[in-house]
């Protein structure tokens, strides 16, 4: 096989794997969110479709596909149909530049665990984020509905305002990397620990705690998530920008929101929590942490099988033990010597992303939506000055350390 063929096969395989995983995560994130929010509010959440409501995302998908899809009168047809595509495709593109793990050897080929390697991947993420405003704004405008237009206008102003502090809060990190880099992989590698100090102590979240707080809040606002989900405030705007969208076009906005959430969680993990790096020191004494992914899958599987066998529906008695056995199988595979090195990076990244996603859901179920003028005042009068002060303070410290 020529080099080009190999490259093409690897690239296509990467894209397919990442897309399938992302779509599955996005689908099951809705289940995850409904479950967590329900349990926080002392409810059960989805419970009917499949054991513990596990088939609910599939049922939702089928429902979205087969529902009637009316087009309201007076819409701007091209923009009306184009907006959901734009929103979804932009939200799912950003994952391409995320470093999912270090370079690994699979079947004799050195492969970077990311779809695209770019020196400017941080800027790529911001460029795509900057464009993702259009999905919501155009949907609101094209729907020919005053509520939609208000939602679109609100969200445009909100995303523009918070994009500033989002970008500003990252400058501190870029300043701290040595040599300065705009690549996400470079930023992750700058957080790599030494033999004596655990990796976790090099995470940028500690020196950049101010930047982290600004980035996290701005990221929640940028993804239009509660408590900043004014674009769709249902009590005041019916449904905001997606009022006039039904069926699969609504599902596309829905998926775009979740994909944006996943991307934001990736960014937070990569920028502030060491991305795919393990929080443990890289010494022989901590080599046992390499077996953590396998151990977690094994324990989960072993617990799931007996629980599934006692489940109260017939489907659950079949499905849950099968899932448990599959988890045990995954655990065994993860412990194999060829796989164990490959799985480390993605495992730690996934663990961090999962925690951040949980916090996202936690926020939604805890905080009430804030008022629009408060939102704008908070963004411009608090977040932006704080992130600017963070840039000034960081550059001062970096300059002092360089001259010492």
């Amino acid at each position, binding site marked *: 096989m020529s080099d080009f063929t190999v490259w093409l096969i690897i690239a296509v395989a990467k894209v397919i794997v990442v897309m399938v995983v992302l779509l599955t995560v996005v689908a099951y994130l809705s289940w995850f969110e409904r479950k967590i929010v329900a349990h926080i509010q002392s409810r059960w959440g989805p419970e009917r479709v499949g054991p513990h409501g596990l088939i609910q995302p599939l049922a939702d998908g089928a429902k979205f596909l087969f529902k009637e899809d009316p087009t309201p009168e007076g819409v701007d047809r091209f923009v009306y149909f184009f907006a959901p595509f734009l929103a979804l495709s932009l939200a799912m593109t950003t994952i391409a530049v995320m470093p999912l793990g270090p370079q690994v050897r699979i079947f004799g080929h050195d492969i970077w665990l990311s779809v695209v390697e770019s020196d400017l991947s941080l*800027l790529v993420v911001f*460029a795509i984020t*900057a464009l993702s405003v*259009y999905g919501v704004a155009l949907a609101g405008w094209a729907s020919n509905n005053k509520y939609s237009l208000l939602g*679109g206008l609100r969200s*445009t102003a909100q995303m523009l305002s918070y994009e500033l502090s989002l970008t500003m809060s990252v400058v501190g990190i870029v300043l701290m990397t040595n040599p300065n880099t705009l690549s996400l992989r470079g930023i992750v590698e700058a957080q790599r620990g030494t033999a004596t100090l655990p990796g976790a102590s090099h995470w940028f979240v500690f020196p950049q705690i101010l930047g982290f707080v600004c980035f996290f809040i701005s990221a929640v606002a940028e993804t239009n998530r509660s408590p900043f989900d004014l674009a769709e405030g249902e009590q005041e705007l019916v449904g905001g920008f997606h009022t006039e969208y039904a069926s699969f076009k609504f599902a596309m906005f829905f998926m775009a929101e979740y994909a944006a959430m996943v991307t934001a969680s990736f960014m937070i993990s990569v920028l502030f929590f060491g991305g795919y790096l393990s929080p443990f020191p890289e010494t022989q004494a901590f080599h046992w942490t390499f077996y953590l992914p396998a151990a977690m899958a094994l324990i989960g599987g072993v617990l799931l099988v007996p629980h599934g066998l006692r489940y109260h529906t017939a489907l659950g008695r079949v499905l849950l033990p099968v899932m448990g056995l599959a988890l045990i199988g995954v655990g065994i595979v993860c412990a194999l010597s060829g796989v164990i090195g490959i799985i480390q990076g993605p495992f730690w990244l996934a663990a961090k992303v999962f925690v951040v996603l949980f916090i996202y859901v936690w926020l939604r179920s805890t905080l009430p939506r804030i008022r629009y003028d408060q939102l704008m005042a908070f963004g411009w009068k608090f977040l932006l000055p704080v992130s600017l002060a963070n840039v000034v303070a960081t550059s001062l410290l970096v300059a002092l350390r360089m001259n010492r």
Partner: protein
Amino acid sequence: MTVELILFLLLAVVAVGGAINLIAQTHPIHSALSLIVVMVALAGIYLLLGAELLAMVQIIVYAGAIMVLFVFIIMLLNAGKEERTAISRAATYLGVPCGVLLTAVLGWRMAMSQPGPLAPGADTEGMSRELSTLLFTRYVFPFELTSILILVAILGVVVLAKREM
């Protein structure tokens, strides 16, 4: 034909098509969208030239920030379709020949001229570092002057808006 040439032709067609569509559309939002398409296509051409930083800045600043404001204002004012008047028709009859003439002259000059030598530091490696170093050493005065100019413009807008209120 190489992959790069195919990509360039594709992006060029999209850029020129978007630019023509920008003028041909009667609705301001459609025109603004066409302008965004042109800008993204231009960013793609920058990428093909190896100017990654320029491409990203093009998207972040122009397609992202400035055009979002355009679209925002058009939405806010709820601007309707463009109305054709006698003068706008006259502009069409006068503008099209002028445009063709300008394109012909520019194209002829470009076809005649030889490509000059590359500026130092114009290779793709370390381009962003080179660019930022130049921007903050040699060109720091004009750079800061531009930001003051923008600041003055913002202040002017605030003063004008406050007077009306």
